[in-house]
């Protein structure tokens, strides 16, 4: 589904990603771990198409097509979803109106009519129940005055509504208490099918207790320096990142 080949990316003439290769197939859950500043969030932004980053080399294929030249919204329309570490507050626009707009713009891009109101309501009801979101919450202004947990739950609610092929969860566990973490993870797990894929970006192993990855990759200094199964996450939790740094520096 997603094939990243030798991606080099920079911002303000500073190289952040220095040759990343990553292959994610439908039905898989991948986790990218790494110390602060290793390039994790940059990788998420580059896949989603943030224009501030300049791709110097390499390619990103999504369903076999090169999406490197596509705009942010075009990638979203293709089925790429990024759950933000810091979702933005939009006063005056309710959660419901926002997600309706997002969903219908995506449909429009595919040449479809707006989703009928009854179907929309039904979907909103189902998905908000999945994320244990109550009705009042849906009529609040998007992310305005939301707690950390509410923001992240709302991100996963949006993901549930949009049904992307690839969901990138950027530090979704940061700022979550254990209950919110459980709800969010449960939501992600229920949305998982053999046809979609999840890329979890996290500093800590905690979230991976709930969203169990098939593959774990360690990102350090703009490169994937180690890949393995879920046991790699436990090893990192136990030993921290220093041994990885040492290993890399000895090469």
């Amino acid at each position, binding site marked *: 589904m997603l094939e990243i080949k030798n991606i080099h990316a920079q911002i303000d003439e500073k190289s952040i990603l220095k040759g990343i290769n990553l292959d994610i197939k439908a039905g898989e859950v991948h986790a990218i771990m790494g110390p602060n500043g290793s390039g994790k969030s940059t990788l998420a932004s580059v896949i989603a*198409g943030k224009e501030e980053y300049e791709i110097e080399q390499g390619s990103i294929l999504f369903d076999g097509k090169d999406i490197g030249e596509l705009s*942010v919204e075009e990638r979203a329309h293709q089925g790429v*979803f990024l759950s933000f570490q810091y979702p933005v507050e939009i006063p005056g626009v309710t959660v419901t109106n926002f997600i*309706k707009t*997002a969903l219908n*713009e995506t449909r429009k891009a595919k040449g479809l009519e707006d989703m009928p109101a009854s179907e929309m309501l039904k979907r909103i009801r189902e998905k908000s129940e999945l994320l244990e979101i109550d009705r009042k919450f849906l009529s609040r202004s998007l992310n305005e005055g939301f707690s950390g947990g509410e923001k992240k739950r709302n991100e996963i609610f949006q993901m549930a509504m*949009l049904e992307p092929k690839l969901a990138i969860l950027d530090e979704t566990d940061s700022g979550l208490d254990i209950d919110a973490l459980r709800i969010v993870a449960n939501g992600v797990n229920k949305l998982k099918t053999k046809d979609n894929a999840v890329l979890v970006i996290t500093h800590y192993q905690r979230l991976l207790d709930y969203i169990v990855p098939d593959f774990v990759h360690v990102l350090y200094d703009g490169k994937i320096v180690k890949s393995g199964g879920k046991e790699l996450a436990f090893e990192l939790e136990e030993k921290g990142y220093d041994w990885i740094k040492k290993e890399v520096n000895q090469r």
Partner: protein
Amino acid sequence: MSLKEKLLSSFIAFENQISMESNLMANLRGEAIKVFENEGFPTKKNEDWKYTSLTKVLKEDFSVFANTENTVEYKDVQPYFIHDIDSYKIVFVDGQYASHLSKTTHEAIDICLMSSALNKPKYQAVIENYFNKIAQKNGLNALNTAFCHEGAYIHIKRNKLSDRPIQIIHFSTGKETAMLLQPRNLIVVDENAQVQIIERHQSLSENPTLTNSVTEIFAGKRAVIDYYKVQNDKSEASLIDNTFIEQHKESNVAVHTFSFGGKLTRNNLNFYQKGQRIDSTLKGVTIIGNKQHVDHNTLVHHIQPNCESHQDYKGIFGDSAVGVFNGKVVVEKEAQKTNAFQANNNLLVNDKATINTKPQLEIFADDVKCSHGCTIGQLDENAMFYLRARGIPEREAKALLMYAFANNVLESVKIPQLKNRVNKLIAQKLGVNIGFDL
């Protein structure tokens, strides 16, 4: 002949036309024309007009008196009314009262015409007490006083509540090549009385119009007034709005100004607090493009202790548009425990757009809370990325963010149908259909 000369020579003809009026009015007009003769129109040399020049606007060959035959059909102007509410309406066409478009009343509240008030003895006492009492004696206001003959006269008597909002609409037909209009409104809201008013100036053609409007508003003890100005005029229409508000003890007056159109718009909005525990609110949303120019010049004069004022102006400027905000707050020595807040936030969405913003605080009391803040910025790139990552195209994403930026000013609009209308105007102004009813 300059417009000033034309006006001065027209005055004699005008005086004959209105010979039925009281001596009081004749004297006021006589004094006023002298003030105008001395001061003329303001120029950029005047500190208050540093960023707004009338020179170009005044070059038009304006007709000073309209043809009284000009009329319009309701079906042609219906969109300019907030028509989904039951309201009183005072409507003028080229400065003349249009009874077929209006709905007035005299039951416990007077909602009628300035011309009646100026001519009929039963209004004499109110006119003597209130007319031309708080309008500043400068060239523009004096010009209006000299020539005014029509506008809204609203008197809400003690303990009365206007049972529905009042719409004051001034149309100009464009049947004259260029038209100068000088409406004059007087609004007196007695003790414990309440009213909501929506005011609009609308030209119906692309011919130039210049409106020099003066409105005096008196809020008695514990009176509550909500005043809304909807400014979305055609590209050749200019407006100088001079509004003066005197508030008494515990009264609450809010003025919202929505400036979305016109060639040049200047709002002179002045509040005078003449009692304790008064609340004054001044809010505005300005969204303009092309070469449009909107200037908000506000004054809040805190004279007595324990009063509040809240100012919040938001502006979005595209193309080569120019915005001006000059907000003056004066806190007199006696006005202890004043809370005065002022905010002016602006978005420039084009490199050629300009905003001049200037807070002016003059504080003579020592136990007060006064704050002011101006910002000028561009749309937040992270916010844009967020919206686009959800599949919302760039153009719609921009509109949503601009809407979000201006939105909180609408929260205090108390007429839901008006709020809805303004929301639609904002969406229209931002040039998008963002998929749901804003």
